[in-house]
Every structure is written in C-alpha cells, then in structure tokens.
C-alpha cells in the first residue's frame, strides 16, 4: 500500500461522511412530509428486493472456494430458507443452516477415514 498517512485518513473520513449522508438522505430530508402512494408501494419491497440479490452470488459463487459452486453451501442455504420460511423465525433458519453446513463439512471430513 503506498498511500501517505494523510491520504489514508482522507479516505476514511470521506467514506465516513459519505456513508452517513447516504443513510441520512431520505430519512433526514423528507421527514414527515407525505410521499406518493406508488413510491410507498415500491419501498415496502425494499428488504426482499435488496437482500436476495446481495446473497445470491455469495451462495452460488463463494469466495472461500474461489468462486466454485459448492454443494454444501447450496444445501445449507436451501435449508436456511426453507426452515425460516416455514417457521417464520430467523433463529430457527440460522440454526438449521449452521447445523447443515458444519454437519456436512464434518461428514465430508470423516468419509476418507471410514473407507
């Protein structure tokens, strides 16, 4: 890394201010002024519109396997979605995903020894 100390702090400060302004933007500026109903309708889909797109590449092409699709991660992700969808409870989903993930890794580690 060949930045000067000042340059590094400049990056950190501008990123801090910029990130705050992004987060403050609408909540800070609009306040309690009413928004058009079609905008409200769009915004109600924000969580389900952002997170699946954020996670999909991480599940299909994980960095830990250098982007190779990993059946164990696919299975664990599938179990997480199924269980948290049916139970409507994130904690059960996390538990199911973690048990599947670490369980499958454990089984794969043991297989060569059993042979």
């Amino acid at each position: 890394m060949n930045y000067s100390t000042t340059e590094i702090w400049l990056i950190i400060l501008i990123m801090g201010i910029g990130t705050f302004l992004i987060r403050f933007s609408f909540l800070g500026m609009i306040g309690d002024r009413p928004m058009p109903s079609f905008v409200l309708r769009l915004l109600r889909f924000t969580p389900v519109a952002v997170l699946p797109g954020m996670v999909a590449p991480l599940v299909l092409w994980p960095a830990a396997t250098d982007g190779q699709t990993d059946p164990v991660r696919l299975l664990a992700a599938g179990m997480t979605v199924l269980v948290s969808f049916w139970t409507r409870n994130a904690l059960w989903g996390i538990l199911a995903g973690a048990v599947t993930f670490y369980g499958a890794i454990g089984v794969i580690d043991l297989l060569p020894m059993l042979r």
Partner: protein
Amino acid sequence: MTTSTAKKAGLSPAKSAFWAGVRDGAPFILMAGPFATLFGVVATDAGLTLAQAMGFTVLVIAGAAQFAAVQLMVENASIAFVLLAALAVNLRMAMYSASLVPYLGSAPLWKRACIAYLNFDQTYITSVARYEARPEMPVPERVAYFFGVATPITPLWFGMTLVGILAGKAIPEAWALDFILPIMFLAMVAPMLKSLAHIAAAGMSMIVALALVDLPAGTGLLIAAGAAMVTGALVEIWMEGRAK
C-alpha cells in the same frame, strides 16, 4: 397507552420496546463478532495502523464497504476510485433510508440522525420487519426499538475489530466464517416473503444480481433491487385487480 406486559414489568412502553429490540438484535452477535474480527485481521494485514482500522469501523460502520475499500487500497487504486467503489456498495442504504421514512419520518431530527448512523443491514431489516408486523406502534417506541436492536451489535462490532487487529492471523480459515453472513441474511429475509408479490420481487432480485455480477461494486445490486421493487409492485397491483 401502556401495554399490559409493560405494566407488569413496570417499564414504560418505550423502555419495553427498547428491550424487545435488544432481544431481537442479540442473535446478530453470532455474525457481527466474527465479521468484525475478520476486518481487524484484513485491515492490519493491509498495513493500516490500529487507529486507522478502528477509524474505519467507527466512522464508516458498514462491513462490506470497509472490506471493499481495504481490498482496493491493497491494490493501490486511485483515491477517487476507492471512494467511489466503496460508497457504491453502501448506496443500497439510501433505499433503507427511504423505506424508513413512513415509519420514523416524524421523529426529532437528532434521533433520525442517530438512526441514520446506525442504519445497517441488521438493524434495518430487524426493525422494518417489526414495524410491518405492528403498524399501530407509536413513533417513539419505533425509535426505541431501533436503538435497542443496535445496542448489542454496535459495541461488539467495535470491540471485535480491535480483537482482530490485536490477534492478527490466529483465526483459522477452516472455521468457514464466510458463510455465516449469507445464512443470516437468508434467514432474516425468508419470513418476510409473505405474498406472491414478495416472492416475485426476491426472485427478480436474485436473477438480475447474478446476471450483473461482473458490474463494478454495488451497481449490479442497485439495478437488481430497482427491478425487484418494480416487479413486486406490479405483481401486487395485478393481484389486487384480480381480487376485486
């Protein structure tokens, strides 16, 4: 005003909303801890001092963008490019900010500023799920709940970054901590798929994000999110039309 449970516990409604937030935010300790530690390790490896790595964590307080910035700094990218790419990763939070307006818009400005500082994926999605489930919740209780969710996560995020800086490379890769993040987010979003419109939006988000994965940091996700919101709204309007 006072709910019966709050009365029993001798708490004001805002206080009990705060503690409900703490309870719902607590599980994220499992994810925020390892993730923050990893940032401390990566930042130190990249050559940042303790103060600089902590500066990132306290001032920016957005994991994915911090990792993106440090990665580009290791590659000696131009300062403008580091900033642009890392801030693009955070642009999704403008959508979070807009989506909180109907719930928190009438809170005092300084409280909205504090919420803006603490508005990251975990606090946002936990809070908005609660607000959706309880539309009758008064604004002061919504604010207290948001701060409650942030309370177990934020100090841990700071503290575990410090641990990562000090512990260095002592964390083995075999723990496969990389997968905690996707599992947490999937588990959080699945219960919010409560109609065909929501499922269609989630599906569109995944398809477009995967198709645009090679676009520079964050931009593919923004386009995917926009397409997904429109998809969700259109399917919802179509379903309302059919129900009549």
